[in-house]
């Protein structure tokens, strides 16, 4: 027996993809490159019949959003239920909720790429598109909430004749920087990964107009080895930038609250608490969209039960983080000794007028993920779908609770005031949901939503390791 070179000790074991079990779990059906490409590209060229109807329907419902936006702009935000002191309410709840949902896409794409998780391959583009469209919805609310949305450019530092500049010591200007950077970087990251597949569609599509359209969008990609190498290095670098960006964006959003002095907001736990919540709701949204899509497009062999299981485990982890954050938040208020904080966290929320809201949040966000300890639930599409809807409801209510409880009962009892949303508030929320789905369905219609070249590369890699 010869003594070979000693393997250096590793912090964690390298996943062993030579095991056939992994291949079966992630890519159970062995397909040739041509078959795999044809299958996935055909989904774009010959979409299922329901897609047109669904696009028309969500497009029509998006008109509700347009109508509400126009009405709000023409009349003023007095048509919302906001009041003084509850000046944020639905608008900012929706903003934080949508931005939070937008976190999972880049998380899946960037973090899981850096951690070399193979299972991200079939879902990353789907999740990233969801991110982009969710951030678009989020952006609508702060713009409208400004009241005079047409002056939004005052937020941008430009030399003006007014001689004033934005106040960069305010967390609201940080928000502008964070959200616009996030949207731009997510788009670049998504597009850079998409270019090879647009080129594949250019070469595959039979119709001239499609070939033209995809030729322009593919920017002349030809797939030389040098280009692939450049693209992969750039993609890795963008992932390395996007990963801390994901963490920074919701941290900054949380500072909108934490920098304020209101009881229930002024807490150092907010950034990690918000980031965990964002990834939690984002993974829930990815599953909500993925489960029906994989069924309707018959993609169970590419988005497998194993993928659902892994995402469910992420839900379980982030759900546990959220539950821990709730406990710590209350504990900090109790041990901190500030009587207003104590009043807010120990009385107003759990026992006061908002108690039903508080306990619904606890049930949805802390209770429902407990089902995910069961392997059978994690691997059942229907159970997961129901749970993800519950979690999203819970996360929306959580933001509403954080915002309206602290605003409606701060330091002075004399200015305490309740809050009641108006029809326009509700219609805006429903409108953004439709608009989000509308954009998402358009994405399914025109873009190969499963990364074809990445899947082929994964297949090659798994084949080589066998």
């Amino acid at each position, binding site marked *: 027996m010869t003594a070979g070179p000693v393997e250096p000790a590793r912090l964690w074991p390298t996943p062993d993809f030579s095991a056939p079990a992994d291949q079966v779990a992630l890519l159970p059906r062995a397909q040739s490159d041509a078959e795999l490409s044809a299958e996935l590209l055909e989904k774009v060229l010959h979409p299922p019949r329901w897609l047109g109807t669904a696009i028309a329907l969500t497009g029509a419902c998006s008109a509700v959003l347009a109508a509400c936006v126009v009405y709000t702009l023409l009349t003023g935000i007095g048509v919302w239920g906001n009041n003084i002191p509850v000046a944020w309410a639905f608008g900012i709840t929706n903003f934080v909720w949508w931005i939070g949902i937008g976190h999972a896409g880049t998380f899946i794409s960037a973090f899981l790429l850096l951690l070399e998780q193979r299972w991200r391959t079939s879902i990353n583009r789907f999740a990233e598109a969801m991110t982009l469209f969710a951030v678009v919805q989020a952006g609508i609310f702060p713009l409208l909430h400004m009241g005079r949305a047409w002056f939004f450019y005052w937020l941008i530092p430009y030399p003006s004749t007014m001689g004033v500049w934005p*106040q960069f010591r305010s967390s609201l200007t*940080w928000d502008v920087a964070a959200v616009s*950077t996030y949207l731009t970087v997510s788009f670049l990251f998504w597009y850079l990964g998409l270019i090879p597949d647009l080129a594949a569609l250019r070469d*595959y599509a039979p119709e001239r107009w499609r070939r033209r359209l995809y030729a322009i969008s593919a*920017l002349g990609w030809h*797939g030389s080895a040098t280009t692939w*190498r450049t*693209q992969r290095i750039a993609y890795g670098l963008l992932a390395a930038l996007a990963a801390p960006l994901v963490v*920074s964006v919701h941290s*900054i959003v949380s500072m909108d609250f934490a920098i304020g002095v209101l009881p229930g907001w002024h807490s150092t736990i907010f950034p990690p608490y918000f980031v965990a919540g964002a990834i939690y709701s984002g993974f829930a949204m990815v599953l909500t969209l993925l489960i029906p899509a994989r069924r309707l497009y018959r993609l169970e062999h590419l988005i497998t039960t194993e993928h659902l299981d892994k995402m469910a485990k992420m839900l379980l982890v982030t759900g546990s983080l959220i539950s821990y954050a709730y406990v710590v938040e209350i504990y900090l208020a109790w041990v901190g000794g500030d009587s207003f904080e104590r009043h807010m966290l120990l009385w107003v929320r759990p026992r006061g007028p908002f108690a039903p809201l508080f306990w619904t949040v606890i049930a949805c966000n802390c209770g429902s993920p407990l089902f995910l300890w069961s392997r059978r639930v994690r691997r059942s599409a229907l159970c997961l779908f129901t749970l993800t809807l519950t979690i999203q409801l819970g996360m929306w209510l959580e933001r509403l609770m954080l915002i309206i409880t602290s605003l409606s009962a701060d330091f002075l009892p004399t200015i305490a005031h309740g809050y009641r949303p108006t029809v326009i508030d509700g219609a805006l929320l429903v409108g953004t949901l439709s608009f989000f789905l509308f954009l998402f369905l358009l994405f399914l219609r025109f873009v190969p939503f499963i990364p074809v070249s990445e899947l082929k590369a994964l297949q090659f890699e798994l084949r080589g390791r066998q």
Partner: protein
Amino acid sequence: MKQTCNAELWAEFESGEAALSAVRSLREQGFASLQAFTPYPLPELEEALGLPRPRLIPFLALVAASAGAGGSFVLMWWTAARDYPLNVGGRPLNSFVTDIPIMFESAVLCAALAIFFATLFCSGMPRLNHPLDRIAGFERTSIDRFWIGASLDRQDTGEALSRALTRLGAPRVHWHTGSGAE
């Protein structure tokens, strides 16, 4: 008359494994400066071709990130402490800590834009036509075909390379005139 176009020789392979072993074998036989087109990234093929690691893009990313962070800090310092000083409850006008979030975001934004556009630039994109498109069947490169080739010197007839490629299992070998293939 000066010759402006180079002759190129391109061979089609039907699988990544075949292309990879062909490149390895050709390199062993002494054929240098090979090029390849593939439908998906093949890190082993890049190694076998001996492609250099692109250093420009990471460097540009670093420069852009530093410029973004530095530039945004200067902007915030100048607007808050010099051009438009505003006393907010006696807080310092130039407060570095509150500048950190925007400095970080600007660094990431500038670096990402630099990476994206540098990638396009280094890859010769955007371009709307490519000389190799004239080879019949080349469009399958984005689906499932692998092309290996080299540009030939003026004296080289390419017979040796062509024979080697055929021996390695390439079903089709094309002579192609035109420049611009990377």
